[in-house]
């Protein structure tokens, strides 16, 4: 295996190439552009035997991917922020049509104000579309997850679309040494996409027909729910297979770090986890029993893993680089709801942090752990708090 110094965007493109995506339909948006440029280069040079459709919008990108997948092609696209929001209608469509499209989304703030910086509101807003959602921490993880998500999504008993995310700039533009698996290795891991039924003139069918309330709409939605539940187990199994081939794995849907004996745990999705790991190590050296649980997979949600953690720890802080106005951080509300039916549940606090790309520093993270220890000692001070917000001077 060769090592290359590449950023998250290039890693995603390498993932698509190694997975032998056959149809790419994409539209450029900052900070995703390097993904589609690199894929275009791969196609132009002949390294990738694929058709690249330069669509006129993200909406058409997803429409073309769904159609191509319905015709039996492995598809790939990438987007970010406004582009993902424009796709929203068709994200639902991809799920209902059971087309295992794979996408990379660079997590970028939504406007206004215009901002190209890291924020997870774009992908979290796609919560109910039926897409599997993976949040990467590193460049290597991004590449590996793109390949793994094809295998999970294309399983005949799953057939669901998925996206992996990269925090804008923190991952999309950060260069790290990445091991590029050989084509032979990936070919051995990921079989060609051969859907049972596809658009085929020898076997004409209507795809995406209509259904009435007394007929099959509800049952067809139930099948999606079942498939998504099956995906929990499949994600673990596929990651295990990948580990056997490459030696790499990422801790399953909930990636835990030093939580075995932890009193307090921070939960987070995305690149801030790397910063948190540093802080955990520092605090551990001081004898403080702290840990990190990184939500790597938001859909399907790692409910059981979170409950297992909740049984062991006293206090959990959930960091959200996004917000549901009128409620709280979406990761927070979901973690809290996963824990609700536990008999002895931990206290859970929401830290709204890093919105619009504001830096999440080691100092910031240190403050959050201090807060969790105060909660452990004296009880919950408040349920949610915006961190590093410029507040008016008091007095």
């Amino acid at each position, binding site marked *: 295996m060769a090592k290359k110094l590449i950023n998250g965007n290039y890693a995603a493109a390498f993932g698509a190439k190694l997975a032998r995506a056959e149809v790419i339909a994409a539209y450029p948006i900052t900070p995703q552009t390097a993904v589609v440029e690199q894929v275009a280069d791969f196609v132009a040079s002949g390294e990738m035997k694929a058709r690249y459709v330069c669509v006129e919008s993200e909406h058409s990108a997803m429409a073309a991917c769904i159609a191509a997948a319905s015709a039996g092609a492995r598809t790939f696209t990438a987007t970010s922020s406004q582009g993902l929001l424009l796709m929203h209608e068709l994200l639902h469509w991809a799920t209902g*049509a*059971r087309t295992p499209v794979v996408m990379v989304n660079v997590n970028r703030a939504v406007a206004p104000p215009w901002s190209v910086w890291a924020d997870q509101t774009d992908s979290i807003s796609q919560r109910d579309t039926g897409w599997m959602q993976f949040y990467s921490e590193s460049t290597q993880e991004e590449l590996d997850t793109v390949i793994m998500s094809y295998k999970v999504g294309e399983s005949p008993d799953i*057939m669901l679309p998925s996206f992996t995310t990269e925090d804008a700039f923190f991952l999309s533009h950060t260069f790290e040494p990445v091991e590029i698996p050989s084509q032979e290795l990936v070919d051995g891991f990921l079989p060609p996409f051969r859907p049972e039924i596809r658009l085929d003139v020898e076997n004409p*069918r209507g*795809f995406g*027909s209509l*259904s009435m309330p007394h007929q099959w709409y509800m*049952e*067809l939605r139930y099948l999606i729910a079942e498939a998504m539940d099956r995906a929990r187990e499949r994600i673990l199994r596929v990651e295990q297979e990948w580990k056997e081939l490459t030696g790499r794995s990422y801790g399953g849907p909930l990636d835990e770090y030093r939580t075995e004996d932890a009193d307090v745990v921070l939960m987070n999705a995305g690149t801030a986890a790397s910063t948190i790991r540093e802080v955990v190590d520092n605090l551990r050296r001081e004898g403080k029993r702290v840990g990190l649980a990184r939500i790597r997979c938001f859909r399907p949600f790692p409910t059981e893993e979170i409950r297992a953690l909740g049984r062991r720890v006293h206090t959990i802080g959930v960091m959200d680089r996004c917000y549901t106005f009128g409620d709280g951080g979406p990761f927070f509300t979901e973690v809290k709801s996963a824990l609700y039916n536990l008999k002895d549940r931990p206290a859970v606090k929401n830290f709204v942090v890093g919105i619009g790309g504001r830096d999440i520093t080691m100092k910031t993270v240190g403050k959050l752990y201090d807060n969790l220890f105060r909660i452990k000692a004296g009880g919950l001070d408040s349920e949610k708090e915006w961190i590093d917000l410029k507040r008016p001077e008091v007095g």
Partner: protein
Amino acid sequence: MSRQPRSYKDLPLAPITYEDTREAFKTGSWRTFKPVVDNSRCKKCWICWKFCPDMSIRILEDGTGVEIDYDHCKGCGICATECPARCIEMVPED
């Protein structure tokens, strides 16, 4: 409707159709007027067949005229209007 599913277990994974409509949907019941053909006056121009939006006119194999598929004909009357020989009459349904 022989192949209607009975539960979600019988369904394909997506709403992918597998049967045509000719047996399940007898749209002939929509009719209020029905076309009646007098093949003895038929000029064999097949204009009625050509314009039928419901694929409900069959050309007889021996080419002596046409027959109406009353299971599906919706009784729009285009055939009667367009027939240059005026050999199709629209008759009220009982």
